[in-house]
């Protein structure tokens, strides 16, 4: 095919990616946006397949195997497992970039310094993405062994790894495509694999969403670097779109937690100077039963539900959607208050509740619902903890000081559904549980909601 036509097709494909992302700016056009993105990828791949005389045997094999595995994953995965899946796929994308740059290095005879640097970057970023994502995936799967790994003198190890990679890159840049260059490349990739592990393994499990968004950004940058290696614009454009997307999501999460990115990556959560003791805080906790909650709901006009990570763990989204329907049928106004970092992924609650058919008009953002919390007769906190912890407002020593929260404590009555008094991700006590107007319902989230529904139906 005329190389110009190929390039034109790549441009079309890049435009489709941009239009696809623009589609994601509204729920109404989002499905079409995703399809446009998929079309963009199809165009790019088809044109590449037929643009040059290629040997199709290995390609077709890879495509078929990859499609089957990808499709099975996509169909089987539970919505609660989305963070894991994104982490895993991310890693695959990064690994692909590393392998492509490596293969390209072996296939050529000569290279300019630019291209060699791009190759080194592609190998490095791709490998960090791969191993980092696998560790993140493992942490989200809660593999016990990962939690126990401690890297001695971690910051020094990281610094040494980065420096060695940089050194090898400089060596490569002056290389001549000889075997030494190739060896240096795989050296860089190996060191970067190690770096990915050491960077991610010591980050707290609940900070994994931030790590995943960052790695998502890296996988884009790796693709862009590969684009520089191949002088391929579609790789560069889509890679940088993904890079931007990951960075923005990372920033959104950090802002919502009122923490800086370095603090997330290297910080030591829980080293707060706060002197609060859980036993003191929880001296006056009142617990309640599903029947009592049902009675409160029967006389309420406005109910707010604050879902958190516990709803995902308990898989309570369908049950709580049923509860909403029952209440709405009884003329009660029911809103869900969605904190930007509730759960383990940005937008996590939205996806779960959408899965359970809750209309998205009922999902209200924090800034929107907070001013109206005083008008709520009953607020049900379902498996949320840190995102409703008033210490964020009151205790400047607290680990979550300054983090914006959902003002559940301001509503007339608060029902907190969780299994115990154990803390949330931030590992600090929550005075909301002992507040004057709070009742605790100690139970698994799904079971608790089901019991409330039963009680409501019986009465």
């Amino acid at each position, binding site marked *: 095919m005329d190389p110009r036509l190929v390039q034109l097709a790549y441009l079309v494909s890049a435009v489709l*990616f941009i239009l696809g*992302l*623009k589609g*994601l*700016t509204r*729920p*109404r056009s*989002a*499905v079409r946006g*995703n399809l446009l993105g*998929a079309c*963009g*990828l199809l165009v790019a*791949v088809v044109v590449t397949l037929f643009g040059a005389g290629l040997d199709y045997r*290995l*390609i077709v*094999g*890879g*495509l078929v195997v*990859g499609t089957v*595995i*990808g*499709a099975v*994953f996509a169909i089987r995965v539970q*919505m609660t497992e989305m963070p894991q*899946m*994104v982490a895993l*796929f*991310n890693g*695959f*994308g990064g690994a*692909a*970039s590393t*392998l*492509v740059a490596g293969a*390209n290095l*072996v*296939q050529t*005879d*000569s*290279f*300019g310094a630019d291209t060699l640097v791009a190759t080194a970057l592609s190998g490095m970023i791709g490998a960090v993405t791969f191993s980092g994502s696998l560790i993140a995936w493992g942490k989200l799967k809660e593999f016990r062994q990962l939690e126990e790994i401690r890297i001695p003198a971690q910051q020094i190890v990281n610094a040494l790894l980065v420096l060695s990679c940089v050194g090898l890159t400089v060596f490569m840049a002056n290389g001549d495509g000889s075997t030494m260059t190739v060896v240096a490349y795989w050296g860089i990739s190996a060191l970067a694999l190690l770096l990915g592990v050491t960077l991610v393994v010591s980050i707290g499990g609940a900070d994994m969403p931030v790590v995943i968004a960052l790695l*998502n950004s890296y*996988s884009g940058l*790796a*693709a862009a670097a*590969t*684009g520089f290696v191949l002088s391929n614009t579609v*790789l*560069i*454009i889509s890679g*940088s*779109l*993904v890079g931007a997307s990951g960075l*923005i*999501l990372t920033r959104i999460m950090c802002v919502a937690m009122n923490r800086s990115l370095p603090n997330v990556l290297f910080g030591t959560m829980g080293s707060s100077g706060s002197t609060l003791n859980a036993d003191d805080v929880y001296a006056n906790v009142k617990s309640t039963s599903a029947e009592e909650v049902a009675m409160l709901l029967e006389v309420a006009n406005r109910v707010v539900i604050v879902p958190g990570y516990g709803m995902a763990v308990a898989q309570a989204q369908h049950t709580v959607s049923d509860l909403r329907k029952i209440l709405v049928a009884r003329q009660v106004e029911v809103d869900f208050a969605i904190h930007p970092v509730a759960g383990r992924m*940005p*937008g996590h609650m*939205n996806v779960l509740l959408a899965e359970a058919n*809750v209309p998205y008009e009922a999902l209200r953002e924090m800034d929107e619902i907070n001013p109206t919390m005083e008008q709520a007769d009953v607020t049900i906190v379902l498996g949320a903890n840190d995102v409703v912890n008033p210490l964020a407002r009151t205790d400047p020593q607290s680990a979550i000081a300054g983090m914006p929260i959902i003002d559940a404590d301001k509503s007339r009555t608060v029902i907190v559904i969780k299994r115990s008094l154990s803390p949330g991700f931030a590992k600090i006590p929550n005075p909301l549980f002992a507040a004057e107007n709070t009742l605790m319902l100690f139970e698994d989230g799904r079971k608790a909601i089901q019991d409330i529904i039963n009680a409501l139906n019986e009465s």
Partner: protein
Amino acid sequence: MNFLLATEPVAKLVETSTEAASTSADTVMLLLTVFVLAVFIGVEVITKIPPTLHTPLMSGSNAISGIALVGAVLAAGSGDSMLPKILGCVAVTLATINVVGGFMVTHRMLGMFRRKD
């Protein structure tokens, strides 16, 4: 002869071509320009995406990063030596999982959002 290239003597250009397609200064700078512009577009568009759609955005943009598939296909299909072709084939498989899985799961997720319109 156009102005910009006029500053490089013809000899330089012939030399470049004997280096057999080492990327010329011009091309790298153009690619860099493309990169910078694409980052701007990314930032402009993505800051407009509402929080509700952040999980689909994450999985959707993840799928897009599987664009490395294009490079993988080229690696798996060209050249004569076996090693790079096998590396390419592994890369094709991994990138395809990323692409197919990513777009499909995003579609599934967005289907849930749409049902209630």
